[in-house]
């Protein structure tokens, strides 16, 4: 069966510090991968998606970047965090031929 992991679960970082959030998927290959951000009480905003290793598409201009160094690994990064980067970050994957997305448990990021 497939499993998606995200870490850390929670993170408190000062403004201006770097960020690295990791997402890994087990039990499948060649998944589409996604990073979303969810502000408190709001819906999901798609940040990045990837259809293959090294292939990253950015949806929203921002202070963040994403990388996919391995088939089942998706990393969200920032060189310098802003207060507005606070939120709940969700990673998701799906099979190429499927429409359903499977979500990880999320990372709660607070930038102070």
């Amino acid at each position, binding site marked *: 069966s497939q499993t998606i992991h995200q870490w850390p679960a929670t993170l408190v970082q000062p403004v201006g510090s770097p960020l690295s959030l990791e997402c890994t998927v087990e039990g499948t290959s060649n998944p589409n991968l996604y990073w979303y951000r969810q502000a408190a009480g709001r*819906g999901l905003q798609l940040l990045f998606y990837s259809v293959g290793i090294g292939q990253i598409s950015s*949806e929203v201009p921002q202070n963040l970047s994403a990388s996919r160094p391995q088939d089942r690994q998706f990393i969200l990064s920032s060189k310098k965090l802003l207060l507005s980067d606070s939120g709940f970050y969700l990673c*998701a994957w799906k099979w190429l031929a499927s*429409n359903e997305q499977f979500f990880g448990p999320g990372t709660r990021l607070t930038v102070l």
Partner: protein
Amino acid sequence: SQQGEEDPQALSIQEGENATMNCSYKTSINNLQWYRQNSGRGLVHLILIRSNEREKHSGRLRVTLDTSKKSSSLLITASRAADTASYFCATDVLDYKLSFGAGTTVTVRA
């Protein structure tokens, strides 16, 4: 930008009652999906309805889709305390991207 918008934003019902929430969207879609999110957790896929379908059932869930009105509804019958969660509609415009609404928060009172 968000394509789907759920209504109402919040809903409180008694256990055993039905809960109905609606989703409106702006552009043509391939399919529409509903997800559930328990507080502080990831989203879980509930049901998918394709653009050529009008109604779909899954257990206590019933989804309708009216493409002429660009709207969908999710009905949860005989609600339980465990149904307390936020519910999101997501529209699939392109095969690899979903656009989520802001969600409906459902509270089921015992």
